[in-house]
């Protein structure tokens, strides 16, 4: 059951990302990407990470993608004729990279022997937060400092001169 759901969601994620990177308008790319991130959040939930799944929906789909959308609409970049889309020649190095990666993944998958896999463990919110605030307390402080610096930098860059 979980495996079937995982493969369907993986397909949705890959197809959504594929449409997003080939979309001609930036707004459509963002909407396809939100779709793909929702499927990815469900994959996180299936992998036993409910908190990360919730943050994926709230922060990625809810905040970062809306920020992108906001900037695109504020700068009026929604018109495809104003954005230079890549020519066919520009896609060649990207296609070579994707083909090399897919081929190496295929070689690895062909050599992979089916071995007994350990059962997936779900991690409870209690375990997550205990580890976060006991073992990685310094990291939380560093991340909050980093967010503060990003805020100050964005205000500095965005003020009118």
């Amino acid at each position, binding site marked *: 059951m*979980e495996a079937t759901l*995982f*493969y369907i969601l993986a397909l949705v994620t*890959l197809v959504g*990302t594929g449409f*997003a*990177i080939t979309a001609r308008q*930036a707004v459509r*790319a963002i909407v396809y*990407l939100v779709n793909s991130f929702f499927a990815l959040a469900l994959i*996180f939930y*299936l*992998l036993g*990470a409910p908190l*990360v799944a919730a943050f*994926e929906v709230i*922060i*990625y789909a809810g*905040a*970062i993608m809306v*920020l*992108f959308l906001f*900037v*695109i609409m504020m700068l009026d*970049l929604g018109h495809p004729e104003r*954005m*230079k*889309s*890549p020519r066919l020649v*520009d*896609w060649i*190095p*990207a*296609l070579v*990279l*994707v083909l090399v*990666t*897919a081929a190496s*993944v295929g070689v690895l998958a062909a050599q*992979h022997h089916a071995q007994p*896999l350990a*059962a*997936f*463990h*779900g*991690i409870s919110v209690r375990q*997550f937060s*205990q*580890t*976060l605030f006991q*073992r990685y307390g310094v990291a939380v402080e560093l*991340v909050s400092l*980093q*967010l503060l*610096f*990003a*805020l100050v930098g*964005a205000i500095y*860059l*965005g003020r009118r001169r």
Partner: protein
Amino acid sequence: MTIPLFHVLILAALLFAMGLACTIAWRANVIMMLIGIEIMLNAVMLTLVGGSSQWGMADGQIFSLMLMALTSSEVSLALAMVVYLHRRRQSVDTDDFNSMKG
């Protein structure tokens, strides 16, 4: 649960390759390059969460949370930079910003 870690890693590798392709193919457009970076960071987060649930440790999920904080600060700074550059040159084309002195 019967999702093998190997298939999660394959999905993450394919997502990473697609993000890299987006960054390379749309190298004339700053916003699509940033979208490609987002896709790559999501693939890395998928790897971390898969490993965390494979070995039953919360560390991978915590690193993916840190990665999310990093991404949000990176995106806010990068989009502020995009707005600043657009105000100077009325363009988001990277080829218009080829000189150090504006």
